[in-house]
């Protein structure tokens, strides 16, 4: 061995050895994973070897070792609303000004000026999430949700108009709605249910969907400051099956695990929450 800068030959030797080892390992993995295993597994799935290889590579759906189940199903969905980029763009681009005029003409008789309802028969809309209003109006229009007053109103509106009304009510601060009488303050058990949920009944906290910016379903409405009478009626309707436009039973499921007393107290808690 001579003391000189390490030369090309030695680099070649190490580089060659390393490359051979890497190539060998790769060859083994590729041949075993993409060819040998699927071909040997194919008989169990009842498929030909070529299909099995395609499944192992990911070119075809399914496992190379197991048969794919047949799909034979048609059933009616509970809501037609889809949260697609197109829908979200309509909502984001909606102009609240025509929405204000529409609301004045169509909604304010029941839901009050600026969405603050004077009657316990109708919910507040002021400061409600635009996506929630849009979802419910769409469902009234499609028949997924029925209400003798709302359904005919919604059927007269276009998609864009729904979004404009949603944008108008969404533009208010929620605080105004929470100025009504307060109940349920200091109800520790209900506050716990709303903020912590109940693992024993697999009940998630109400707040994990019904507060702003919690990453829950887009259509979840804000509950704080809502009329307690309206909240209670809706919980009963979900539990009793009169209302069923909640996608994947989210509210039918939750409400069926609540007692009547809890529904009352939750409704009061949320009316008092600002």
């Amino acid at each position: 061995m001579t003391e000189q800068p390490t030369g090309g030959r030695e680099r070649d030797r190490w580089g060659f050895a390393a490359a051979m080892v890497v190539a060998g390992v790769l060859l083994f993995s590729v041949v075993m994973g993409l060819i040998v295993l699927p071909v040997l597994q194919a008989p169990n799935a009842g498929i030909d070897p070529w299909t099995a290889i395609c499944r192992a590579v990911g070119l075809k759906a399914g496992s190379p070792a197991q048969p794919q189940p047949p799909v034979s199903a048609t059933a009616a969905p509970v809501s037609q609303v889809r949260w697609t980029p197109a829908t979200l763009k309509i909502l984001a681009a909606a102009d609240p000004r025509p929405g204000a005029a529409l609301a004045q003409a169509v909604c304010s008789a029941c839901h009050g000026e600026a969405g603050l309802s004077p009657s316990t028969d109708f919910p507040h809309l002021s400061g409600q999430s635009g996506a929630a209003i849009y979802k419910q109006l769409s469902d009234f229009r499609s028949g997924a949700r029925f209400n003798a007053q709302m359904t005919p109103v919604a059927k007269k509106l276009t998609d864009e108009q729904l979004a404009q009304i949603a944008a108008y009510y969404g533009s208010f601060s929620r605080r105004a709605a929470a100025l009504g009488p307060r109940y349920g303050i200091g109800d520790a058990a209900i506050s716990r249910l709303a903020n912590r949920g109940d693992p024993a009944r697999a009940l998630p906290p109400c707040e994990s969907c019904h507060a702003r910016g919690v990453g829950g379903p887009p259509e979840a409405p804000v509950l704080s400051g809502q009329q307690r009478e309206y909240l209670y009626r809706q919980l009963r309707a979900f539990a009793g099956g009169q209302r069923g436009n909640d996608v994947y039973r989210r509210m039918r499921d939750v409400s069926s695990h609540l007692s009547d007393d809890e529904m009352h107290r939750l409704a009061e808690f949320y009316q008092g929450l600002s």
Partner: protein
Amino acid sequence: MPQNRRLILAHLWVAFSVFVLAAALGVWQMWVRSPLAAPQDTPARYYQSVTGHGVSMAYVLTTFFIMGFGYFTAETALKTPLPSARWAWAGFWTALAGVAMTVAAILSGQASVLYTFYPPMTATPWFYVGLVLVVVGSWIWVAVMLVAMARFKRANPGAPVPLAMYATVANAIMWLWTTAGVSAEILFQILPAVFGWTQTIDVGLSRTLFSWTLHAIVYFWLFPAYIAFYTMAPRAAGGRLYSDTMGRLSFVLFLLYSLPVGMHHLFMDPEHSTGFKFIQMSLTALVSIPTLLTVFTISASMELAGRLRGGKGLFGWIKALPWERPMVLATGLAFFMLWFGGGGGLINMSYGMNAMVHNTAWVTAHFHLIFGGTVVIMYFAIAYEIWPSLTGRAPLSVATQRLQLWLWAIGMMVMTLPWHYLGLQGQWRRVASFNYADPRIGPWGPLVIVSLAGGVLLLVSAVMFVMNLLPRRAQVRLPEQGYSFALAVHPPQRVPAALNGFTVWNVLVAILMLVAYGFPILQFFIGNSPQAVIHPLTGG
């Protein structure tokens, strides 16, 4: 004596202060999950805390420690000042600004997406921008390391790059490869969504890109521990390194095989096929080889030291080792925990058995053992070892250092052994509460409390660690001293070019990545890859 002591210390202090806070969060999280009543136990607080704990431990402690230790190694091993202290400081301030942004985002409650992000859930943009700045700061460190090695080679043609520096640069290069995945995910998928330019994220692609980073980042954290095994522990034990070549080979193998294996985090995912999972599994199997080589080489080095100190017989050399020295003790404890953590890892790796443990407490136990047990305990030992040459002061007495290390190791075992067991029982991850009233879950309660006790020991140890390092009044100033790394039994006069540079290895990494990740990433660009609408978790 290193020139840029303030630079190095600034990095280490950022790392260690964040570390203590994160340890405290960890204890509170275990308390919340246990049957005992904890304060502030809402899910919003819990996931905020988990995000803080993960980001602090995985991104801040590690990145800042590795940068600081890298500067230390470059100056002491190469015996020259850094090529550019100004750039190094620029990297520090960039990363620190990033940390401040990310921490503010987490504190505001607008970033409870955990440290692995979980798109299509999204946080406030500040969270991601802050993390990008941390990575950019670390890239500046990479550049400084590369230039330092290049200058050394130019000034000393034919001379081997000292092992500690060679390993540090291997880590820097691996880090460049590693960050490519998560950077692509943040820059091309998450940031456009959180800034409102797009409404959807391809979740399959984002998981794949994150997995690119997810395994190699663990080796990024692990490198300093291995550098200490090879270049610090043998000297501390009073011996020499058994084999310099074996060391270089191990570091090169880490560079090579820690990257094309990230998909083993996705074994249970529906968006990848069995074939590519198999390929990455068999490459994962190879990662254990450098670990086993290290176990051998370091054990042999220790045996050498033990026999030099008069140890006789099959096990006599173990008794003869100077266990009173923190570096030796930490190495012993780290090896002990590496056996458990590595053994668990082999089970995670085989994709049949993975179904038994995926997303259970077993996995939490595994990576806490590897990270806390092997990585962080060696960070402690390194800090104790280099403190005199950085500050001119010794840390608090060697006895308190030993006590601190023992507490850490015991705490780690007490915490993770119940987790391993509970994982096998099916205890799942990332929940803020368990329904202990359920007879199927109730029996887990006492074990969860035991692991909480382990967590308390860890917190005590973490606080002790920082106390040991703090400057004290009436402290004896040591004479100025340099630092020297352990020499090999047979110090290399020259090494093969392949083991003195990285060109060959970079080419091989590129080939491996192409095979392992080429089609799995390409598939998201074929046909209509499904998109999920974002779910902003940005607070009210």
